[in-house]
């Protein structure tokens, strides 16, 4: 039998993986099998990573740990660190001090700049949306080679961005 991976050497290792109750059989040569076992060892969950990141912040004193429980779903910050999942939207308020830092470490920012739901009317967000719409139109104009329209849109975006910067000063 020939190795399923390299298709050259003789298969001497027979590996059975069970993924979601589905049995996958692989016949591998010694070399490919060694490589595959290294890859398998390297697989570890997102929660391991998150737990590492969440620990990275300032040391939390023992008495603060006791307080860090979400009043709505009863999830403790310790449990969040263990499993990497928050329990409800209230957790974001309950753990806002810790999460602010964590979000910044994950995303490089902790300020939302995207869309908002139709039922939330936020003035500053509306303004952002407008620029987003224009940027999308600009991209399309470029793709369709409507360069005059693209130039107009570009100027509009620049003007709006300058105004936004001045508003924020």
């Amino acid at each position, binding site marked *: 039998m020939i190795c399923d991976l390299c*298709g050259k050497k003789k298969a001497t290792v027979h590996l059975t993986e069970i993924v979601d109750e589905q049995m996958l059989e692989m016949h591998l040569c010694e070399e490919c099998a060694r490589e595959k076992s290294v890859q398998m060892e390297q697989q570890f969950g997102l929660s391991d990573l998150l737990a590492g990141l969440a620990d990275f912040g300032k040391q939390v004193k023992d008495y603060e740990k006791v307080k860090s429980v979400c009043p709505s779903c009863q999830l403790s910050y310790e449990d969040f660190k263990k499993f990497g999942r928050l329990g409800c939207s209230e957790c974001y308020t309950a753990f806002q001090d810790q999460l602010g830092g964590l979000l910044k470490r994950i995303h490089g*920012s902790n300020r*939302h700049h995207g869309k908002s*739901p*139709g*039922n939330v009317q936020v003035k500053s967000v509306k303004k952002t949306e407008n620029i987003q719409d224009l*940027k999308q139109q600009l991209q399309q104009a470029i793709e369709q080679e409507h360069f005059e329209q693209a130039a107009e849109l570009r100027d509009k975006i620049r003007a709006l961005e300058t105004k936004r910067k001045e508003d924020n000063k």
Partner: protein
Amino acid sequence: MKLNDLIYQSGQWLKGTGPYSNIVMSSRIRLARNLLSVPFPNKAHKKDLVNVLSSVQEATKKIDYFKKSTLFQMNELDNIDRQFLIERHLMSHEHSSNTEGKALIISQEEILSVMINEEDHLRIQVMQSGLNLHETWKIIDMIDDNLSKILPFAFLQHWGYLTACPTNTGTAMRGSVMLHLPALVMTKQINKVLTAIAKLSFASRGFYGEGTQARGNFYQISNQVSLGHSEVDIIQNINGLIRQVIEQEEQARQALILQNKPMLEDKIFRSLGVLKNAHIISSQETIELLSLVRLGIDLGLVKNIDRCTMNELLILIQPAHLQKIEGRKLSASARDIRRASLIREKLGGV
């Protein structure tokens, strides 16, 4: 629509059309949304999950786009059915376990799918053929706007949409592009490209989703960062990156032809020969051979077979699909035989 109707159709995203479809197989965007004042699925009680499910179901009845869609409750499907939906890229592995309160909505052409009560209350996904993230965004944005008029989504002005995992907070958007990069693999440049992608905070994974190895030279590239940039900015960043990868792949394809065209042709046509003639074939071998034949089609070397057939085969040769086609459970060795006969039927072999 019944689940079995899907066996005889293929998703719109497999058509093999759209911009850069010689290299880009499909574009996909997913949005995560949660309902306000209901615990996330991992902390929710059965009652909460059932309420979420019925609220979402009621909301979709009021939205035109959902008129031709069907809802499947996970606990009413057997293992093969659920695996079948995963293989079609309509839902995740995670959605097929602990099925209490979980459901999946699929639109008729499989453009839209919504997982209810997976990691978040809603995971909305839209897929299109080729490099088409802007069009994909337009569709999903419209669906999300309509849903948000009816369902109260958990949202904070400074942190955006709130999700069970903080890696999704903000836009809660993941844009992914599925690329076929055989020439970058053959010229041994792929690791360099993947390392550069990782450095730019983008993720790359295989054709068969999260945690899978890249097989058959298919790579899925998606954004990791979801907070701090708008949805359109994220899409533009992905597009910019993908265009560069496409350029690299195109250069590598040209280099392969210039260096040794007969060798390349030999590889491609031998692959086609095996696919047309094999009577027993594993999925691993099939995927690798399909990749080479697809390259042959993209380079204009293989005629009389279209890209769509190749894309469809990538889906059909998977275990649950073979068993659905056959209408019964098949052992691994029986599947290898059925797979070979299916390929021969599709490619007009002996």
